[in-house]
């Protein structure tokens, strides 16, 4: 439960950075924190107390393995979501660089479209 609360707090921190901060890089960081809060939430869905990694090694009983291993599906989801987040992060940084090139500033208040 602690960890779910942590994910919620992280989500709040990220949204705060995204919505309140006027510096574009801080907005980018806020979005990254939001993404990782969601990943943290997802990865816990499959967790069982004292579980082992869902990778079966040679000589391991199938039934014991299935009984002890954590749910692998959320891990797959999180990996995919991290990959998507990576692509998004690259695009965001590229856009931020372009904005800096054009305006010489990363302050959202100096831009015409980004108010609000």
């Amino acid at each position, binding site marked *: 439960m602690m960890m779910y609360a942590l994910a919620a707090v992280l989500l709040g921190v990220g949204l705060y950075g995204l919505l309140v901060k006027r510096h574009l890089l801080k907005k980018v960081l806020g979005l990254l924190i939001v993404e990782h809060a969601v990943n943290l939430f997802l990865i816990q869905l499959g967790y069982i107390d004292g579980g082992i*990694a869902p*990778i079966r*090694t*040679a000589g391991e009983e199938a039934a014991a393995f299935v009984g002890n291993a954590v749910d692998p599906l959320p891990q*797959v989801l999180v*990996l*995919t979501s991290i*990959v*998507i987040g*990576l*692509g*998004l992060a*690259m*695009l965001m*940084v*590229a*856009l931020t*660089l*372009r904005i800096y*090139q054009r305006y010489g500033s990363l302050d959202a208040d100096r831009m015409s479209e980004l108010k609000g």
Partner: protein
Amino acid sequence: MSDPQGMSIVVRVVTRWLFGLILIFGLAVALFGHVTPGGGFAGGTIVACAFVLAILAFGGSRGPGAAFARWASSLDATGALSFLVLAILGYTAGSFLHQWAARGELFTLGSTPSIVLLNLAILLKVGAGLFAGFIAVAVFEGAAGSEKGADA
């Protein structure tokens, strides 16, 4: 981008030793991705890190990083296309992405050759793609459209 000469002699020598080892490690992580933790994505990230290290140590114009930078974008597309081709080969065994190669003994490298090949394609795609993204952002040029498909 740091100084074009790269970093100090200590860093350069250590990088020269480590570079190959990191590459081999990345390759191993990808090759044994079906029986151990890891896989194409993790391996590709490690390989990309090796080249990023080379760029940081030797500067943008020399060393293996600079050579890879020229080819990164094409290799990225090649990796993706080879994944598609391997996936389409699955039709020979019945359906898309089906395991078309004969399966070997469990828990060995040869247990599922088709997944090993898919992992290698992802290694190429992720290694080159990540590195291309790093180059595009680091040298402050290149088009904004750095696209990523999910490789799961």
